């Protein structure tokens, strides 16, 4: 970390910056891939759904089944879009918050903990939307959501929320002490 002066920003650790940049890059690639391969992705999801009629509650009546399949594909598409959106946002959140922690948190242990939570939580959380999307054709909308919640959203999202509030309180305390 660099410390050119008391009113200067300090650079966050390189792994945090790398995680943020990779996340933003993945978001951009994900957005482009969604547009470029929309038809292929939809076809793949549809074929997997049709291969698992019991999982999706398909009854063999075209009118009913088409509605169920459409709904699952809308959610599949929404998961990809939410990955794109959240990965773009969380990349910037990681940079802004780890830079703040690196500069304003005095205790080495606390600074390290906050930065690790923000980096790991921020980088992992958006991946939950990819996982949700990928699992929808195999398990259905709600079961896929439960898996993504347990494996990714709750642990990684929880880490980000705890670290963000921790950092906010530390900065608020510093502001109060100064004034």
């Amino acid at each position, binding site marked *: 970390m660099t410390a050119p*002066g008391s*009113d*200067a*920003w300090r650079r966050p650790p390189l792994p945090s910056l790398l995680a943020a940049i990779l996340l933003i890059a993945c978001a951009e690639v994900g957005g482009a891939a969604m547009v470029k391969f929309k038809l292929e992705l939809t076809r793949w999801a549809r074929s997997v759904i049709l291969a698992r009629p019991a999982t999706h509650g398909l009854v063999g009546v075209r009118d009913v089944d088409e509605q169920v399949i459409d709904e699952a594909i809308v959610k599949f598409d929404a998961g990809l879009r939410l990955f794109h*959106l*959240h990965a773009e*946002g*969380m990349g*910037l*959140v990681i*940079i*802004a*918050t780890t*830079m*703040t922690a690196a*500069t*304003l948190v005095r205790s080495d242990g606390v600074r390290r903990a906050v930065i690790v939570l923000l980096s790991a939580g921020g980088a992992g959380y958006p991946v939950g939307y990819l996982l949700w999307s990928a699992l929808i054709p195999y398990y259905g909308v709600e079961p896929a959501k439960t898996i993504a*919640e347990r494996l990714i*959203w709750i642990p990684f*999202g*929880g880490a*980000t*929320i705890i670290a*963000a*509030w921790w*950092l*906010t309180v530390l*900065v*608020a305390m*510093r*502001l109060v002490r*100064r004034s």
Partner: protein
Amino acid sequence: MRRPPLAVILVGLFVIALGETAGAVMSQLRPQISGSAEARIAANPQRHGLAGSAEYDTEVIARAVYSAEAGLSFFHTHAQGLGPLVIFASTVAATVVPWRRARGALHTLLALGGLFPLGYLVYSVAVLERGRDAGIGIVERYVLTPLGSAVIVGLVALAAFIAAERRRGRAA
């Protein structure tokens, strides 16, 4: 790069933390949120134009609940975007703008504008308490437009100051 005043950084962090928490709350408590929204609409039947006809009222209630949930969703996404924006743009102001008063004005505008996402929280509440169209109208006029304008004016002024500083540097 110089860091902006602590108060401005705190606004950015506070908005990010609130936005992240709102996302988790929306995901985990969606049925409870919908239920309490429906209860608030039922408590304000005149403001929502409920007619007592189940078919008509169901549609009106669904639209109002959808708008209230959309407000929460907009709050989450805007907070994630504007929190870092406040920190980065105020860093540019602290680093590039040499005039103290101008810097102070920019930091004030950016910090105020950073509160823009909170307008969507007010939006959600106003939709339920004042009726969908009236609530949205009030919040757009008195909360979203002023706060959104603050961030727009702040960013345009920052661009103007960067251009002025560049010209000054060339002249020197």
